[in-house]
């Protein structure tokens, strides 16, 4: 069973590595990601959001929904810690 698991992991890893061959080079200006929305973000950030820091305007405005998810993840982590640890503490006391 263990050897089967290792074989599956190795095959999956090999497929994933094979998949990276087709990916564009690091920072390639002609890659789809650099041609589609990035130019608009870079040129229009100050005009649209009055925020000189592109990272902030991307994080909280253009991709605000993602950041809401991130905050919810942190909220969930805190809530789980309270649910598990505080109830354990109450039981001990």
């Amino acid at each position, binding site marked *: 069973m263990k050897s089967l698991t290792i074989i599956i992991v190795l095959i999956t890893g090999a497929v994933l590595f094979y998949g990276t061959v087709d990916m564009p080079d690091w920072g390639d200006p002609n890659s789809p990601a650099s041609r589609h929305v990035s130019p608009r973000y870079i040129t229009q950030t100050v*005009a*649209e*959001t*009055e*925020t*000189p*820091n592109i*990272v*902030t*305007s991307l*994080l*909280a*405005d253009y991709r*605000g*929904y993602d*950041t*809401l998810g*991130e*905050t*919810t993840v*942190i*909220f969930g*982590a*805190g809530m789980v*810690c*309270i649910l598990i*640890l*505080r109830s*354990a*503490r109450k039981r*001990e006391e």
Partner: protein
Amino acid sequence: MIHNSTDVIIKTVARIFIPFIQLYALYVIMHGHYSPGGGFQGGVILGASLILLLITHGERVAMQRISENWITILFSLGVLIYAGIGTLCLFFGGNFLDYGVLAPLLHVSPAAARSLGILGVEIGVGIAVMSVMVSIFYNIARSGPYRNKGTTARRES
């Protein structure tokens, strides 16, 4: 149980540094528009200052400053601010988290309203991250098999 430290150097250094750490954290949150930073980083620094207070001055002093119930309320409040600003945009006829439509409410241009909306959600993120850090630290420090070992170890040494 985290006790009040008996070391005067540690307590004095912490007492001097905590206000500056908190000031820097607020700077990082508010200055996220112009420099690296924002809600997550500033919130973590703010949480670190409260954790420093907790480990140097002990639980009792720290919990007088900010109680466990308040921390729990605050980290719900942070997410509520974020989602609330997003929902407010829905009421003004925009999409969720589309801050531009808040311009009539804030009496500024749509672009400036986006800037203020970003600031609002960053503050929400900062509050949430700060209180979650403190809450996790506090809960982990208080529970577990070594919870009450601090007193005996201190007496022995």
